[in-house]
């Protein structure tokens, strides 16, 4: 029996090689073949549905039968701009999104600082997993948990009353929504901030100390500016997710908690006015486009 030689193996393999040599000669062909199904999916389904939504924003509906009238008009947009109620709703949504982002940044920074600069390797790993865990626990479950906590006979009021304070009636209010949003998106802010802080080289801080800077000065002038891209990266999530949410306002909000998302949701599911919903949905898209441009300037994309 012949001992298989390298040459022999090569000869055998060459027989199965025409396809492979085709890929060798035209390297882009394999990539193109691999890319076509997913790209096809995205373009034919996702992208075209987004384009359709954009086009629908310029249509209107027949008022009696709610059938879509495919006549080009900017009525939806003029309505949004002119009607004070929509300006109020948009302003309220942006305002709360900004407040939640700020709150999460404040809550996250010391936590991330500890993780990055004080904790041991092992503690880092544990904390990282601990922060990731609530993030992946069901969104609806976590909002529901807060409904239970905040309601009249829930644990918050029980705790307050057991130390002699009056009960906090924050069910169905904007403060309740603020708490819930800050809670839900907090891990999204902690993780990029931690990543950015972790990358600050120790040598920079030593140099600052050598130059005579007190610790707080080093924090302010060296660490903080380097952490900003991470915080901004986290803020992309907290801001965008609050901007598009409608479930928390329904479950936790009261009168005067209507968000952009709620008007979109009820326009589609209740008023059957998809063109108006589409037009209004363009507002958060436009806002996020601007926000992403600013974030890119501040270096957030490198921190992602």
């Amino acid at each position: 029996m012949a001992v298989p030689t390298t040459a022999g193996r090569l000869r055998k393999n060459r027989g199965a090689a025409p396809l492979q040599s085709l890929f060798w000669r035209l390297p882009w062909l394999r990539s193109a073949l691999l890319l076509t199904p997913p790209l096809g999916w995205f373009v034919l389904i996702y992208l075209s549905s987004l384009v359709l939504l954009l086009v629908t924003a310029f249509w209107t509906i027949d008022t009696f039968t709610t059938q879509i009238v495919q006549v080009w008009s900017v009525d939806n947009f003029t309505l949004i701009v002119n009607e004070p109620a929509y300006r109020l709703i948009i302003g309220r949504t942006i305002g709360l999104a900004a407040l939640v982002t700020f709150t999460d940044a404040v809550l996250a920074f010391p936590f991330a600082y500890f993780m990055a600069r004080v904790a041991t390797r092992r503690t880092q790993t544990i904390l990282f997993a601990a922060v990731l865990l609530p993030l992946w626990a069901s969104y609806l479950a976590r909002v529901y948990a807060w409904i239970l906590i905040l309601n009249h006979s829930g644990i918050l009021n029980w705790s307050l009353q057991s130390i002699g304070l009056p009960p906090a009636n924050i069910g169905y209010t904007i403060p309740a929504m603020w708490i819930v949003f800050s809670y839900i998106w907090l891990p999204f802010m902690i993780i990029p901030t931690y990543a950015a802080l972790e990358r600050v080289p120790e040598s920079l801080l030593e140099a600052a100390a050598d130059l005579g800077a007190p610790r707080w000065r080093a924090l302010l002038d060296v660490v903080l500016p380097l952490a900003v891209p991470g915080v901004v990266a986290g803020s992309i999530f907290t801001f965008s997710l609050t901007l598009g949410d409608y479930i928390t306002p329904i479950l936790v909000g009261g009168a005067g908690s209507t968000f952009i998302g709620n008007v979109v949701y009820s326009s589609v599911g209740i008023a059957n006015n998809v063109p108006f919903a589409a037009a209004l949905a363009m507002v958060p898209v436009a806002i996020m486009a601007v926000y992403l441009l600013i974030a890119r300037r501040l270096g957030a994309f490198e921190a992602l």
Partner: protein
Amino acid sequence: MRSTKAPAMWVRLGTVAAAAVIAITACGSNASPGGSTAAQPPTAGMKPPTSVGAGEGQLNLIAWEGYVDDSWVKQFTANTGCKVNAKYAGSSDEMVSLMKGGGGGQWDMVSASGDADLRLIYGGDVKPMNTDLIPDFKNFQTYFKAPGYNTINGIHYGISLQWGPNTLLYSTKKFPNAPTSWSVIYDPANKGLVTVPDNPIQIADAALYLMKTQPSLGIKDPYELTQKQFDASVTLLKQQRPLIKKYWGTAGDEITLFENGDVVVGAAWPYQTIQLKADGKVAVADTIPTEGATGWGDTWMLATNAPHPNCAYLWTAYVSTAKVQAEQALFFGETPVNTMACQEMESLQAGSCAQYHADAPGSYFNTIKFWKTPIATCPDGSSSCIPYAQWQTAWTTITA
């Protein structure tokens, strides 16, 4: 993530392809009569079946909360094998929206109120039903055999179900004596303690209140309002806005609000009162104030593309029987359309027949302003009344 100036060739091609797809498949919109009720609805020509076949094993219903309760549904499934899957809608608007496309091939029936019926009929989303297939139909009160909101030109687009008022629900602790006027829900003394439905048709309730308190406005029908009358109603509701703790979207929302002590008074259906009393966590009662009440007359309508029509007819026949009519009337707090139900109600709960006016519909009936779709045509023939689409946009500005 660096963005490039020129989109990738793939992206450009894809957008062109998508636009082409849209252009090619663009279909014209259905021409609608735009509110004229003399024209023939789109499904008028669809002949209903003459007999009911075997059940298909499944029934998908869009209903008001409390309309598909296990206490009578279990027996129905046992009798017919049709498993009932109910989706609870919080408003007529939601029902109309869910039913678009003739039910989308998903939904079989909807328990639509008077303000949804015409929109469903003229949208082509429901089709004619054969009343011969409903054995109890002959026992219905005459008016409910062919009311204007579900029967057009002699064709029945559904079978009447039950009817009832919207009530004033209040905590007996805060109001030991029943309030006599709707003014309590507009009273600034109750700031943050009021709830009303999150439904544009509430504007009619405000108009009803103004009928008595501002007669100079000349409101005759709370659903047919001129611009001046409409604006006055909207202003009243905007003044009410600071008093509202939360606009309730589902009956469950309102029940939770009362049980938590978040609200003490509000507009409700009799269903909430019965549920709250059964739960026993908070003492409540309801009443109809002197200004009167709006109300609803409900019809089970059959979706144009209903996937389970046999189960649908079996269901309609079942809920039209005197026994189930009585059970549902007592469960929800409404009035049955079947004249034989009165005896059943008395045997289940003495005095209920009179309580829910099942025996004296005429006089009581006329005091209720039933939900109907506001259209542009006023009773005097002019076209200056406010159509429903404007009610919806006004409602968004009220609750913002």
